């Protein structure tokens, strides 16, 4: 895979990433209809988060697979493109989503159910906050993992493949490192 093909592959992976939380936060009040609606929204959101987790892991694998197919003489330009052009935009998008999530979290935390609605509303809120927390962790994990890929694939940081597997060979092995 050449650099152009890699860029197209990467653009495709990023285009498939889920980028926006579809959880419309509204203040739940203790009326049966609103709470049913709120809890249903939380349940949909929980399902989406679970699907997104798989999508992000699959995206990481696709990016690594694309790097694996790049010939050695193209790896440095591919890393430069990835680190300097592609990653900043991905990070901006992820940071925007993290801001959205923090905002949703704050709005939910500010809701203080009154005494008579306390238990039902509190349970719904706790579940929504837990889903937001999980979503946040997924985004942060993806951000951290994708940010490490340039280092992971830099030729200087890849294993040479000269594995010492016998103590009898130790001095020869160490001399080979010095000679390269």
């Amino acid at each position, binding site marked *: 895979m050449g650099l152009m093909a890699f860029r197209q592959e990467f653009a495709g992976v990023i285009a498939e990433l889920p980028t926006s939380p579809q959880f419309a936060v509204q203040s739940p009040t203790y009326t049966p209809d609103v709470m049913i609606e709120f809890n249903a929204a939380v349940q949909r959101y929980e399902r989406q988060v679970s699907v997104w987790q798989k999508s992000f892991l699959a995206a990481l694998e696709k990016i690594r697979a694309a790097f694996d197919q790049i010939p050695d003489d193209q790896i440095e330009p591919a890393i430069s493109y990835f680190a300097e052009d592609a990653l900043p935009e991905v990070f901006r998008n992820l940071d925007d989503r993290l801001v959205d999530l923090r905002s949703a979290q704050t709005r939910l935390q500010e809701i203080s159910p009154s005494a008579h609605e306390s238990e039902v509303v509190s349970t719904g809120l706790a579940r929504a906050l837990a889903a937001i927390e999980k979503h946040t962790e997924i985004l942060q994990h993806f951000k951290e993992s994708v940010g490490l890929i340039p280092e992971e694939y830099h030729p200087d940081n890849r294993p*040479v493949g000269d*594995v*010492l597997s*016998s103590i009898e060979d*130790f*001095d020869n*092995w160490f001399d080979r*490192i*010095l000679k390269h």
Partner: protein
Amino acid sequence: MIQLDYTNRFKKSLSKLSNDQRQLVREALRLFVMHPQHTELDFKRRTGSKYYTIRADIRLRVAMSKIDEEYYLLELVGNHDDVNSLDRQGR
């Protein structure tokens, strides 16, 4: 026995050392391969880091990544500042 591989970055950092220092690294790695927990080596994972280090002398450290329990990748040899810079790159 511990299995070892290395990166080009390790090779480059090793090439910058004096002959005496290279000899210290050789002996530290030989000991590590056979007795990774030997107290002389002070083998440990760096706090908040994915890297492990062993001590070659009072100032010289070898940084490595753990591939599995008995397989490590040598990443860099240098002083504390060099190993700290490795952490910053890996963040």
